């Protein structure tokens, strides 16, 4: 044993050295480093979880946006369709109104024309009766009773009126 140098005080010194080194490394090495590793791990996990959360939220909001867009598009389309419908209706109404107006105007005109014509005929008839009476007077020279004549003429005219019609 003496030959290879086993020496109890030296052995104890080395044991003490190892103890000192152990304490030094625990205090300055393992404790702070393990703490830091744990801290970093926690931090990374937290960050990743956060990232996941954000990704999830983004996906959700994107979906929501999509849904909103879809809804808006649908709304827009329905509004356009409605507008077109309303426009069509309005056009139809306008056309209808115009048609009615036109027919009313035509009707009125026709009534007017009828009235004018009747008036004219009336006038003519009176004039014609007078002329006829005058002519007849001239022809027969008061041979006939005026009243009788008038009656005769009226009858004739009535007949002719029915003819005409």
């Amino acid at each position, binding site marked *: 044993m003496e030959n290879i140098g086993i020496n109890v005080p030296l*052995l104890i*010194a080395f044991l003490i050295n190892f103890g000192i080194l*152990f304490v*030094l*490394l625990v205090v300055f*090495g393992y404790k702070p480093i393990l703490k830091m590793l744990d801290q970093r791990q926690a931090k990374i996990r937290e960050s990743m979880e956060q990232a996941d959360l954000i990704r999830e939220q983004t996906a959700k909001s994107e979906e929501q946006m999509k849904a909103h867009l879809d809804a808006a598009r649908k709304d827009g389309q329905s509004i356009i369709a409605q507008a077109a419908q309303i426009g069509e209706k309005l056009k139809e109404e306008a056309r209808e109104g115009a048609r009615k107006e036109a027919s009313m105007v035509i009707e009125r005109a026709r009534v007017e024309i009828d009235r004018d014509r009747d008036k004219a005929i009336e006038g003519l008839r009176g004039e014609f009766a007078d002329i006829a009476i005058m002519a007849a007077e001239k022809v027969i020279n008061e041979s006939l009773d005026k009243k009788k004549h008038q009656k005769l003429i009226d009858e004739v005219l009535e007949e002719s009126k029915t003819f005409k019609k």
Partner: protein
Amino acid sequence: MSKKPGCSTPILIAGLVFFAMFIFAFLFGPLGSKLFGLNVPEWMAVSKPEIQLKSEAVAHISWFTITNTLIASWLTIIVLGTFFYFATRKMKLIPGRLQNFAEVIIEILLNFASSVGEKHARMLLPLLATIFLYVVTNAYLALFPFFDGTIYIVEPNGFHAPIIRAANTDINLPLSLAIVSFLYAEIQGLRTHGLFRYLNSFFQAGKLREGFAYLFKGKIKPALGSLTFGFINLFIGVLEVIGHLVRLVSFTFRLFGNMTAGVILLSAVTFLVPFIAAIPFYGLEMLVGLVQAMIFGGLTMVFSAMAMTSHDIAH
């Protein structure tokens, strides 16, 4: 740099110079001069290595002798302590280079501990890492030129004692580590299992007790069988205890032998072929130092983990 390796001019010149130095050293060094009968030039004579297993005394403080290996181990402690002190002085979440380096070392060791000790990794780490760092730093520092022979003190009897010598080459250091490792493993075993169960894991006294129970009941035949097994177990237990104690010796001499052999190899090569030739052996010694440190730390951990897990499964 040209694309073909070895064709770059600076490298070629350096290679040629190295080769010439190697040839020169080989021819005129002790090896070549013996072979070819040349004389060793005065300026390149390396003193013949004197192999001494005992560490040399450097100073005496009353009854205590400070040896050169003790000084080397202090140096190791100072180097490691300073490194970790500065590396972890201002810990940051985003590490700087020094902090990162320290973290990498510890993390590799922690992973190693996890692969062996699993859930005990955090508990095993301090001892594993301290042994590893201590041994590897001792080994690597010993490769520096100021170790083993550049700085001497002359003892009264005319003996030249290097003032600093590779700490691992002093048997007291491997022995101290082996004692720590052994005690740690056994204490962990005792702590996890309790004294009785831990001792029982060696001797497996169950069969013996069973045998005696049969004997008292008067059943001779099963009693004989159980007693035989019981005594075999007892014998195995004795072997087991010896096996545990032998770990001390194997731990000690593995490290001591490897490291001492390394130092002797280096000094022998340096003596025989003074230049260049020793460089590959320095590389080898770096590998050996790392491997020995890993083995010492790893085996400590394995034995501790084994002591802590159930022995009934282990045997």
